[in-house]
């Protein structure tokens, strides 16, 4: 029963850690707007965490520049299990318009397993909510599989 309680709760209180891997700030602003009164993701239990140790979901924005790559990977590795990685916007998925630049090391999926991609440039807040909800579901499944 306790296990079930934990698994249930896992689906109801996802905390986000946001990493900007060279983003143009478009996605960052959209992510923050998810927490504004209009979209109010806290309704669903979402909260921005200050440290990766507290987070369940890592949201990566930006094309993963060569400078940011080791930092991104380190921060992701510091998130305790079970965790979910969400790429937000086109950049971390493919590099988008920065593709092929000497300073872009992406896409992120080359280095870690990405659970959810949210496409858009930048995605609408609704799409972000959808993506995070999907990530939460995956999180819960990961917990149940444990």
């Amino acid at each position, binding site marked *: 029963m*306790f296990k079930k309680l934990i698994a249930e709760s896992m689906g109801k209180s996802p905390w986000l850690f946001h*990493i900007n891997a060279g983003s143009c700030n478009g996605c960052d602003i959209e992510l923050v707007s998810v927490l504004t009164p209009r979209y109010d993701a806290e309704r669903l239990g979402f909260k921005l965490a200050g*440290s*990766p*140790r507290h987070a369940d979901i890592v949201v990566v924005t930006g094309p993963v520049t060569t400078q*940011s790559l*080791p*930092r*991104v*990977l*380190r*921060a992701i*590795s*510091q998130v305790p299990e079970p965790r979910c990685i969400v790429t937000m916007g086109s950049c971390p998925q493919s590099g988008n318009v920065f593709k092929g630049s000497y300073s872009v090391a992406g896409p992120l999926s080359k280095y870690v397993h990405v659970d959810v991609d949210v496409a858009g440039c930048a995605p609408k807040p609704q799409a972000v909510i959808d993506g995070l909800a999907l990530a939460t579901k995956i999180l819960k499944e990961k917990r149940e599989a444990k």
Partner: protein
Amino acid sequence: MMTSLYQHFPIFSIMVLFLGAFLIVLFGNVKPLRHAIALLAVTASLGFLIALVKPVMLNGEIIAYWMGARAPAGGYAIGIALEVDALSLFFGLLIATAVFVSCVYSIQYMRFDDNVGQYYTLFLMLAGGVMGLVLSGDLFNMFIMVEILTFAAVALTAFRNTAKGALEAAFKYLVVGCMGSTCILTGTIMLYAQAHTLNFAQLSAFIPGHMNTATVVAFALLYIGFSTKAFIVPFHPLAADAHGAAPASISVLISGVLTKSGIYGIIRLSYFLFQTMNLGTMQFILVFMGSVSMFVCVTMALAQHDFKRLLAFHSISQIGYVLTAVGLCTAMGVSSGLYHAMNHTLFKGLLFLAAGAVLQQTGTTDLGKLGGLSKKMPWTTALFLVGAFSISGIPPFNGFASKWMVYQSIYYKAVESGNIGFVFVTIIALVTSVLTLASFVKVSQSVFFGRLPKEYENVTEVPWGMRLAMSLFAILCVLTGLFPNVVTTYLTQPAANAVFNVANYINAMLGSGYAESVMGAAAPAAQAVTYVEVGLWQPVSWLLLLIIALLAVTIVAIAGKYDSVSESAAPADSKYDLFFGGEESVYSQVGGEDLFWGFKHNWRGYFNFMHELHSGIVNDYALWAVVALALVTLYMLIVF
């Protein structure tokens, strides 16, 4: 006169220490013999005093001992006398305990030093001097003992004379300490000129009826003299230097024993010799100096960046508590003051020993250079935390028990006397306590927690002998905190009783009826000292509850796989790095001098002023002493 064997114990407990000192001079080159003699001497001294607990503390006897059986004749006490009442024994026990633990600690602490034989000689001289001071029954012997202990302490301060600042500290101590000793000598002479006796009991019977300008000046001189021994403000900068430079085992004695001898002197002086403590003006000066010491030194400590200097300032801050409580002239005040004095010896000793352990293993006590030592020295850390919690007044350790009584007594005094000034003293005391906590949080973060610097990767735990010494203090800290009723019933209350029954003291020395015959109606009536504690605090029950609660939490936690933690397998795994905003975690220690900038920023005017004031020049400090002497003399002349 009944002469039981135990009547001789006081002189034994002094003489074994001196005898040990001389024997070590003779046989000090042989290492095991040296340690054996020193240990034997301090153990014997402690043993003799413990044997006296039953007759003196429980039965309320006062041992009057005349050296060479030269009992007073013709109303004049000529012989050298020892007089042990509960107050003397209380301080004697404190001193013997501190000396014993310090000696145990020294064996391994001093093992890398040269001339350890001389160290032990001076150590035992110091111990004997303080012991003689508190057990002595006449004023001149007290002065002699003050001289012995001052010079031994000065020499020991400079013992590690290769260390930076050791000689300077010793010199400062010598200058101001000698000024103090001179004050005591001058005061003694002036009293002798007036009363033609040096015996305490006789002086106590004589002076209250014959107060004149000369005795008042003598009082001021003696008061300042003993104040320098207690290092209360304005004599505090010496203590900081002396503690910083002296070996830790000596710092224990300077802070735990020398300051106590000063407090003892002040109590003897103001409660016994002059019996002026029932005057509001006299209470004012003690409480005032106490509160100022309390607050000034705790803020000075917050600004320190050296472990031992910080402890030194705290030492004076705690002495401020003692002086304030003693100055209240209420039964609970004196009792709580003595209780705090005892606790101060225990926890400050523990803290100094921990600082010594850190110094020995790392070679520095600079808060800015240390960090993370709990990884390498878990025992020292645990013991240090006991000391730190005790001094900061965290329940259920002993510091809380005594501070709690001090607050009560001050506040109760305020209500009793209707004087709102005491309310502010209460507030200062409470705020000082939290500032003490702050500075010990600073020490724990800067020395024991936080990050371990690269150069201390190979630091190891201190040897068992030093840990044993620290553990002794720690156990005493916990026990005296858990059973405050036992301590007050068997130790501090008898001592407080002695303080308020001067007539007994006089009569025990000079035969019953002497006090009444000399002092007439002014003779203080024997009073039974009782008091009711206002507050409620049952540490044992609280601890039991906490243990049960903690057990419950732990069981639930373990059942919930709380302990299934993941730890670093490979050292390079970035998962176990500290979070550094994503950067590779490099050495970064937050700590040292300026940890509480949020506090210091608001008080920057005060701190800058203090910084300028403490110039470190011995001339300035000597000047402060003279000014303090002048002001106190003036005050007393106006008052009396």
